């Protein structure tokens, strides 16, 4: 069995994101970049499936510039068997990412693709769903529990109304929610071992994936500053204040 895990390099969640002065993007100069936290959960889940005795090869895939190798090495140190970098200097949107993963599922003959439910930079929450549609396979999104038995996955999903349990047949796409697991710490000796594990680089242009239509981003702006609240003395004052604002 082969499991593909997608990892995206994003601005670390602890960083205070700042919009560039000219509105052309956000500042990444000197900023800490890490694996998207939901993708780390995806990695952990794939490793746990393998550690439960399943004959599985776990492959981490990332799409991005050459520097993303650093995050792939972290994935290798966590325990994945090998890594693939699809190299491109462009920032891709979900549909293009889904198309690339679709191509890789074919090349790799994947049985399971685990992705984060969303990346914390653009918060799109689309790639897993789009991949399932392109691949024409079932999807189990927002997973908080995953059990695999003979080619069938039983997945508990976090939905608006609470939890929902579904079962899907492999091959399938799973996207991870926060409560699925707590990713392991990387150990020093494993970082050493990871240096000799295979990391393959594919040029995006050589993959033969048709360019997807894209949304054009025209401007970035920080959210408007919140104005502090106002305290009023009593209920009549509240009502008149609300009326003043045209709320009542």
């Amino acid at each position, binding site marked *: 069995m082969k499991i593909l895990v997608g990892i995206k390099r994003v601005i670390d969640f602890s960083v205070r994101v*700042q919009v560039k002065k000219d509105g052309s993007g956000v*500042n990444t100069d*000197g900023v*800490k970049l890490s694996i998207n936290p939901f993708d780390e959960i995806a990695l952990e889940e794939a490793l746990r499936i393998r550690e439960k005795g399943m004959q599985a090869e776990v492959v981490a895939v990332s799409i991005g510039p050459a520097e993303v190798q650093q995050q792939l090495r972290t994935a290798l140190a966590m325990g994945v068997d090998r890594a693939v970098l699809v190299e491109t200097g462009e920032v891709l949107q979900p549909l293009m990412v889904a198309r690339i993963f679709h191509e890789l599922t074919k090349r790799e003959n994947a049985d399971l693709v685990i992705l984060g439910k969303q990346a914390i930079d653009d918060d799109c929450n689309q790639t897993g769903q789009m991949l399932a549609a392109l691949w024409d396979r079932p999807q189990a999104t927002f997973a908080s529990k995953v059990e695999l038995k003979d080619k069938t996955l039983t997945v508990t999903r976090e939905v608006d109304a609470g939890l929902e349990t579904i079962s899907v047949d492999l091959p399938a796409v799973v996207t991870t929610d926060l409560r699925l697991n*707590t990713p392991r*710490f990387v*150990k020093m*000796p494993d970082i*050493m071992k990871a240096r000799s594990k295979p990391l393959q680089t594919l040029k995006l242009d050589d993959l033969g994936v048709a360019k997807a239509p894209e949304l054009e981003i025209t401007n970035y702006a920080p959210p408007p500053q919140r104005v502090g609240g106002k305290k009023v003395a009593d209920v009549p004052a509240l009502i008149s204040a609300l009326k003043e604002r045209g709320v009542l």
Partner: protein
Amino acid sequence: MQIQREIMTYDVVIVGAGPAGLACAIRLKQLKPESRVCLLEKGSMVGAHILSGCVMEPAPLDELLPDWRKTPPAICVPAAKDEFVLLTKNRRIKLPTPPQMRNRGNVIISLGSLCAWLAQQAEALDVEVFPGFPAAAPLIENGKVIGVRCGDMGLNKDGTPGPNFAAGVDIHAAVTVLAEGCRGSVSKQLIHEFKLNAECSPQTYGIGFKELWQLPAGRVKPGYVQHSVGWPLDSKPYGGSFLYHLDQDRMYVGFVAGLDYEDPEFKPFEAFQQFKHHPSVKPLLEGGEIISAGSRALIEGGLQSLPKLEMPGALLVGDAAGTMNVPKIKGTHMALRSGMLAAEHLVEHGSSEGFDARWRASPSARELHKVRNIRPGFHKGLWSGLLYAALETVTLGKLPWTLKNHADWKSLNKLGERAPETEDYVTRTLPPKDRLSSVFFAATRHDEHQPAHLKVPDTNICVGRCATEYDNPCTRFCPVQVYEMVEENGVKRLQINAANCVHCKTCDIKDPYENILWTTPEGGSGPNYQNL
């Protein structure tokens, strides 16, 4: 529970990826490519915990990596013009720039981004760099340092292993190089264990603050360097400010105060924020925004406080030892040089033996000798300090005596012992509003599940003696308000908000009962400074 630990073996293990540690690693591999070198760094990435001015004397870097200017680090602006000023509450008076403060030929850099860049150079030479892995304790066997133990990951609050527990690895090496910077926690243990400071003056420190500002166009004059003394400090505490103008409308704004201050009510953070509101500074900053900010202690004892730099199996380099040139406020070139010298020594001798004598015979030691009386000259206040500085400078350090330093934790006056300093402060409008909002600019993070890494062995002192004798100064000297006295059901206790800590080490230095111990938290915890 018996914890199983893996052992990794190297020729040299270096603790701390600051300029000293990185220069040592790079030099070792340049001179002896086959040596196996491990470099540990507690920050989540190299540079994340580095905070420095930083106007750097580039000569040692030119020597280490002659091509460095071809691919300069993110911030690198040649110093253009120096000004040294005395501030009163409303005025700015130009003083002659002391010779040690002239910066022609120097460069204004972000030491954090320089270190990140140096780490890439080190990795290209096959140094094994491990960001996110602190050395928690030294390993000593038969009176010799044999390596270090890395910190455990995944401990519960009570110190028991949690579900994701990963035991820290033991690193064994023929030589351990301590390059932890000012007040290193492992260095401190070793200085004590091997009595390396038996023959020197007590060490003395300062606390430094720094902010990186993005300003409206047209205010910044790239390369302009201003240092000030005076307001908002009255004449007693040693300290002053710096303004370094960068390119792209960015500016470094910083402040340093000597930790030998005496008034227990003194608030270093407030003094820094006040400085920003001086009429000559505020108009520069108004309307701009802070990109990153933090604080870090500086080591100020100089030559007379320098411990012995070697012990069996290990040596101290950079500010872990205290090689900083305080009157120049420059330690980076000294750290680079001592790291390189250590590497050269290790390649030639294979052991730490003889390094202390070698360093003391080097140009670095001569540089510190010349200025040795300037910092302690300020012990009696600004005027005596400036006078001493002038004297030391005109005599080229040939005064026949050496002034002593005193331990900072002993310097506080008891409440009521002396009238508190009169604070002539203004109402502040510039960010950050308070210490808690400054935490945000440091992007500091500590997983709340781990044990608090700040240890206060005797909390009875806090509610008892310390409250009555000093009014709990920890609640004021910590730059990010980690320490708070809270009252619950009529009972007072000390609350430690360890998650906010920016690893400046001030509490470990200044607590008047030496009752605060800074230890390494889980790897990767702490600030994530951006271009500081």
